[in-house]
């Protein structure tokens, strides 16, 4: 199982578009000019330009293959002069861009998960430009690893068959199926809908990034690498100079973090958090490289396993490290306190623990969903199945083997109880997100 330290998140921002890409550095990176990422997922957020008729914010999510397909379509469309339809070569993605007018374009998202608008999406000129820019920035900084095991992805084109974790290809649909079951079980439509909307949110944090609300109370969190405001209206990495290619930032857990503080091997988050107006601060923000260079963390950058090859010199931010530390050429390892705080992330800790133990029953066909309250010591205070099948199957889950009062998840630094929603999936994945307070 991949450890947290293996996963990185890159973020790119322009005035109307932000892109967060998450993936696992491939060992093949040492032989490539750019870091090679596998098991990639992404979240794209399109925000209105300064046009009154512009649509509201739109969220798009997908996997690495879909990211490549989207990037290919956008770049082709732009390259061809924005006069004719551009479509991808991936029949599964079926992403297309068509011109509506000189300044308006229609994006047919195909299989991408879209929130905030009904497809097809109308993009303004600046949105299209910013979209092309962030995709370009990502491609300048990293590569999505092509499939190495074609037998596992039959019938897919090379683009479509990018490596995925089990179930990732239908990750988004599964996420919403879980969401639907939660809505049905709890029956409180409005509040649960909000919960579902936020569901992936903490999982993004487990990737090695910190949400702003956590950063705010981290007095000992020396590295102030999290922006304080939402992206709306803010231009991030707006410098169009060649160094702006590095406008995207990359974060990852410190592989040197004390294992005793770690929650153990933890799979990466399954999805990105769709930022909402209700919780704008929950969306980790892109940040310019300069912010990272100003970090007073004091920790020495350490090369991580499977370190990617250095990028070209023009792509190297000012914080670039020595050649023997290629990892830091486009990402700054977190300080020890940072890594420790990440390791203590409650949903991540629970997810890691349960992931090790979860063996789905052979006949299980739908996720089992539970609401947990983990007390400050790390023990389960309350456990509530969220539907009938989850009640019936409780004794087949690792939750049933945890004794009351047993602090299996480790203490919470702030000593407070944490309400969580746990989804145990038939494919073996475990998803844990923060639940709203009662």
């Amino acid at each position: 199982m991949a450890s947290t330290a293996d996963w990185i998140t890159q973020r790119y921002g322009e005035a109307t578009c932000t892109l967060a890409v998450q993936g696992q550095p491939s060992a093949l990176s040492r032989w490539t000019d750019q870091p090679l990422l596998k098991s990639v997922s992404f979240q794209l957020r399109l925000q209105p330009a300064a046009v009154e008729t512009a649509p509201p914010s739109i969220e798009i999510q997908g996997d690495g293959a879909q990211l490549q397909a989207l990037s290919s379509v956008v770049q082709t469309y732009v390259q061809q002069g924005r006069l004719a339809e551009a479509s991808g070569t991936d029949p599964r993605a079926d992403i297309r861009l068509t011109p509506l007018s000189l300044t308006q374009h229609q994006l047919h998202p195909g299989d991408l998960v879209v929130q905030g608008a009904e497809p097809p999406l109308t993009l303004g000129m600046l949105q299209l430009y910013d979209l092309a820019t962030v995709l370009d920035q990502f491609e300048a900084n990293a590569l999505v690893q092509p499939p190495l095991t074609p037998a596992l992805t039959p019938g897919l084109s090379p683009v479509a068959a990018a490596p995925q974790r089990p179930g990732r290809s239908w990750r988004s649909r599964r996420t919403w199926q879980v969401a639907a079951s939660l809505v049905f079980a709890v029956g409180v439509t409005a509040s649960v809908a909000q919960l579902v909307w936020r569901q992936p949110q903490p999982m993004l944090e487990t990737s090695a990034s910190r949400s702003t609300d956590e950063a705010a109370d981290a007095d000992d969190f020396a590295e102030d690498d999290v922006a304080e405001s939402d992206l709306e209206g803010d231009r991030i990495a707006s410098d169009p100079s060649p160094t702006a290619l590095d406008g995207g930032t990359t974060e990852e857990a410190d592989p040197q973090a004390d294992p005793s503080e770690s929650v153990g091997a933890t799979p990466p988050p399954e999805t990105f958090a769709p930022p909402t107006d209700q919780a704008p601060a929950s969306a980790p923000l892109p940040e310019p490289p300069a912010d990272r260079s100003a970090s007073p963390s004091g920790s020495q950058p350490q090369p991580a396993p499977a370190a990617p090859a250095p990028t070209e010199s023009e792509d190297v931010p000012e914080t670039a490290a020595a050649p023997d530390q290629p990892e830091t050429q486009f990402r700054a390892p977190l300080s020890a306190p940072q890594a420790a705080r990440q390791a203590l992330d409650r949903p991540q800790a629970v997810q890691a623990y349960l992931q090790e133990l979860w063996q789905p029953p052979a006949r299980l066909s739908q996720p089992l969903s539970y609401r947990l309250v983990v007390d400050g010591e790390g023990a389960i205070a309350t456990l509530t199945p969220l539907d009938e099948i989850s009640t019936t199957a409780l004794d087949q889950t690792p939750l049933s083997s945890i004794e009351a009062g047993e602090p299996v998840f480790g203490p919470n630094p702030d000593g407070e109880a944490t309400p969580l929603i746990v989804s145990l999936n038939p494919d073996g994945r475990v998803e844990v997100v923060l639940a709203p307070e009662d």
Partner: protein
Amino acid sequence: MVAAQLDSIKAQLDLLLMALESLTGLGSEAILTTAKTLHLGGLMADRVSLWRLRQASPLRKGQGRKKLDVEEARALVLIGAELARHHQPLIRQAVAQLETATAQNQPPHRVALLGDYLDNFSNFYQDRMTETTAPSVDGLAELALRLLIDLLFYGGPGGTRRLWLTLLDRSRPTGE
């Protein structure tokens, strides 16, 4: 009609610089200064050599059109993208205003910045290009606005590569 103006790599490069001139008011000195900054002064040391390069456009008035070699084309690409990058805030502002005007069904020329740009572009075109290649008034405005949007993309990250590839994509063999 507009596409016809962009069939030639030489015409594209010249028109791109003309669009920049029309929007920003920059002149030959700014182009030559940028050339020196990019260590391309050897290819365009003075106004005459710059004029000769731009005169390579088949749309231009005059005789004795020179051929453009790869190094010269590359130099113009680098300079065009660098100038677009330098003036990116203004370009973005103009495109934003174009987007707003279009969304509101307002003629672009009624927006001050765009109106000045279109006027300048039209004047430059009529002064420098042959009448036989001149598009209609509407066609000229459409060409100018397309070039404006192109500048937005060329001035962004990867703009140089994008411009270079666009030249290849849009151009058609002329036998020149």
